[in-house]
């Protein structure tokens, strides 16, 4: 089986300290708002299900280097209609 997930992080050493942020900080750039909305809107079209989108994200070769919303965008760009 060739499925390779980069997402199984539980217990892995070496990722450094957690960096808390103020609770009212929702987004770090305006494009993040749009990336979220695009993914939710497209999700509502039924083009994929949650397992498909998770698989698409967690198999990205640079999964760990991408920020969360970047992984949204890269995934959608690579599988777009």
């Amino acid at each position, binding site marked *: 089986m060739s499925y390779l997930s980069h997402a199984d992080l539980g217990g892995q050493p070496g990722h450094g300290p*957690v960096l808390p942020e103020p609770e009212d900080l929702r987004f770090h750039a305006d494009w993040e708002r*749009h990336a979220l909305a695009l993914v939710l809107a497209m999700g509502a079209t039924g083009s994929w299900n949650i397992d498909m989108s998770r698989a698409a994200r967690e198999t990205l070769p640079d999964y760990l280097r991408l920020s969360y919303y970047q992984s949204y965008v890269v995934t*959608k760009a690579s599988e777009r209609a």
Partner: protein
Amino acid sequence: MAGHDHDHDHEHGSELSETQLRVRALETVLTEKGYIDPTALDAIIEAYETKIGPRNGSVVVAKAWTDPAFKKALLEDATKAVASMGHMSRVGDHLVAVENTPKRHNMIVCTLCSCYPWEVLGLPPVWYKSAPYRSRAVKDPRGVLDDFGIKLPKDTEIRVWDSTAETRFIVLPMRPAGTEGWSEEKLADLVTRDSMIGTGLPKAP
């Protein structure tokens, strides 16, 4: 496929990063193909900035603190109890409430992804989705609490709940002392988002 985004730590409003351009291009393509309506995107963004946030969870916690029957219902079936308060259930699956006591502190994580109870807490914070939190919460929860400036008594058991796409958790923190007779609304103001994730405690009255 994956590009070479060197820019995610220094996005500035004044420059168009590769990621920004990619989002714009996607939005344009998907709009032209008729998949999405840009006004719907605005409505989604607005909902997540103003309506779907941790205040929903704070209200649930405050009600559990003041209404024993609701607390019992919440601990038995949080999906049902939360739905009875009229919250929209965006993820629509099982929600489990885990109760903090003087003996046991609960924390939630999603080691594999970013599963989180959106309908009561809104969007997950960046650190919740980050490798440091996901890797270490299950191995060294006390160390993680230290990163948040939280110190618990040595004999408090810490239980960590790993979320899935189907089952998500919310922590029911302990009601702060000195709040006897407070209204639900006033109590809700003490309930922080992090106290419902388990990486924080409610504010002191």
